[in-house]
């Protein structure tokens, strides 16, 4: 199981990496919006975890690029962000996000479970 985590906050990233690794995932990371697309292209993951507030290029832009790229648009994108307002959620889903999780609202186990379920359903 291959995942690309796009996240700029180091502490969070370290925890996520740790958790995903322990759950049997192979991980690639991108620390900002600009790195995201090349990392995804190279890694060809089965799922993408995407933060929205990123330096250089916002998560929304990354999402738009991913979903407009013929080779990448089939990869499920799970938004994992601290933006929790309705209009942000609506916007991300409209841009093609497959799921939207607000960081503070979910235990890590639940996040792993959701990602796994997404992969099984595929």
């Amino acid at each position: 199981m291959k995942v690309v985590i796009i996240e700029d906050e180091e502490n969070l990233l370290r925890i996520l990496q740790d958790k995903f690794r322990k759950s049997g995932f192979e991980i690639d990371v991108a620390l900002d919006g600009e790195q995201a697309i090349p990392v995804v292209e190279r890694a060809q993951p089965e799922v993408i975890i995407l933060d929205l507030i990123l330096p250089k290029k916002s998560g929304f832009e990354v999402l738009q690029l991913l979903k407009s790229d013929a080779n990448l648009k089939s990869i499920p994108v799970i938004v994992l962000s601290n933006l929790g307002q309705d209009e942000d959620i609506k916007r991300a889903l409209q841009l093609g996000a497959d799921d939207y999780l607000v960081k503070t609202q979910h235990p890590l186990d639940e996040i792993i479970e959701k990602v796994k379920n997404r992969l099984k359903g595929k």
Partner: protein
Amino acid sequence: MSTIFLISHIVGFFTLSILALAVVIRNSKSATNILFAIFVLEFLTYLVFNYFSLVPGQSSDRVLLWIRLVMAITSFTGPTMFFLAYTFPQSVLTIPLRWIVILSSLGLLSASSSLTPYLFTGITGYTNNIVPIPSPGPLIAVYFLSVPVLWLASFILLIRKYMRSVGVEKSQLAYFLLGIVINLSFLLVLGIVAVNILKTSVFIPFMPFSFVALAGFIAYAILRHRFLDIQPIIARTIAYTFLIIFIAIIYVSILFIGSSLITKTPIATEVLFVGIVLTAVIAFTFQPMQKAIGKFTDRVFFMGLYDPEKLLSDLSHIVAETINFEDLTSKLLNTIIKEMRITKAAFLVIEAHRIKEIRSVGYDEKWLLMSPLEAQIHQELKSEMHSFLFQDLEDEAMKEVFRKYELEVLIPIKVEKNEVAILILGPKAAGNVYSHQDLGLLDVFASEAGIAIQNARLYTDLKLASEAKSRFVSVVSHQLRTPVSVIRWSLEMLQQKDSTTQDREMFLNNSYQGVIFLGEQLDDILIALDIYDKKIFIKKEPCNLNNIFKDLVPEFATVIKTKKLNIQYDIANEANVVQADGRKLSKMIKILIKNAVIYSIPGSAVKITARLENKVGNKKRAVITISDNGMGITESERDHIFEEFFRSDKARVILPNGLGLGMFIAQAFARAQEGEIWFYSEGRDKGADFHIALPAE
């Protein structure tokens, strides 16, 4: 004499016809209008008969016949006048039928008896040049009842109606009454006093004008009553009448005496008449002529002239209908510039005795703010500020400021004695100077504009505050969630049994740092909220800078150590103690040191200096400077450094979770302590110097 009779009768005839036509055309169904037309028709007939009775060279029998016809037709004016007075100004006839029958019969009786020898038995004193005077018979009583008594009754009736009515109707009735008074005074003076007492018939030709005056006033009451106020009309009419009579008497006297002295023969009546008419013409046309000539000369000689009433009314309209601050100020400035033909103008918006904002057309806003004008204005604001006119200035220093910045006029705009703005105006386009009339007009405008400007600013502030609030909530909620999720997930990881000791230490440290960070964020958010609500309260005390630095720098010891930064101090002795709010000064310095430390490149130096500086007016201030060799500030970032939540892209990379409230708080604290904060940077990666200036004592 006969020519004068003819002219006056023809003029009277036409004027009356026009009045009657105008009234009937306005509303041919109204009882008042119809009665008025009948009334005028009677006068028209009277004028015809009267003229023929005055044609000289007739047999006395014929004259007597004309006079009888005159009496017959005037017999009807009593009842008609009464009906008109009763109905006026309604459009429906409400007179009781029996009154109509009785009064009409009286009129008919008087008219028919006028044609018999029982009303006038004959004519006395008739010679070729004197107006015939008929001798009354027994039936004169009927005529007396039908005409003078009914006129008097009508007059009393109108007065009673006048007393009871209000508003428009009252002013209409006033016109009517005024018409009767003028008519009767004319008749009394010209007809009875002149003929019977002075034994002269010179004024008889003017008799038709008394009826024109009467009909004119009634017609005016019917047609135009809504458009003009009655009182100035009455006042002007009386004043004019007296003036004309006065001028005419003097004129005629001079002509009469002058010609008698020179030619030794009395002047001809016709010449006197022409003289009087000319005097009247001059009197009536003087004002319009003066106006027309004034307009013409203004246009030729005074290019910069404008219509003050139009300008004021235009400005009032804008003030009344514009709520958006930017629209309001730009519309007002453009209107003043366009109509007064001024080259440039600006509003300096004042808040708490300082220039808060500049709205200008033609002036360079930044330049105005940096100019010594600002200091000068602050000085003025402390005392009671008045309008300034460049040419009236006596203070040479002030004059120099005005000249340098092309200011001609400066007008304070106040609300309840507090300045809310200052209107400044540049030179007039035509080069002419501002007059005191201009200033007077602008003062009137200033009193109207104050509240409008204040309201518009409040409105804009409210709108901005609401936008800022929703942005604030959105940014803050995101930024607070980040440390919360770090803490939450770290604690979750700690609960897992398979983690190594090294992992556990890291997760514990993460949680701890997260909590610290969260606390700092909350502090900054609460300060920012106080700034929004203008709840920053300053308690000044002597603050020792050395102590502040010594307390603060160790807080960043870890970063300083890992980045191998070299902290250098250079605190001038005389600048070591400043008057400030200790906690706020400490917070400001902490913000600047933290930024310098975090954004510096490893191994570089951070310099902290303090020195004393003389400012305008010989006031000393302490300037604290914190310089780093960090990421610097780019051209495009410069204008946003002090905005809340602003963070440069590079800063986000170095420290992703900052709120962007530091510089916003530092600036607010500096301003609250009558200080300043500013920075200098040559660009990206070229470091930055941040300065705080505070009054020293």
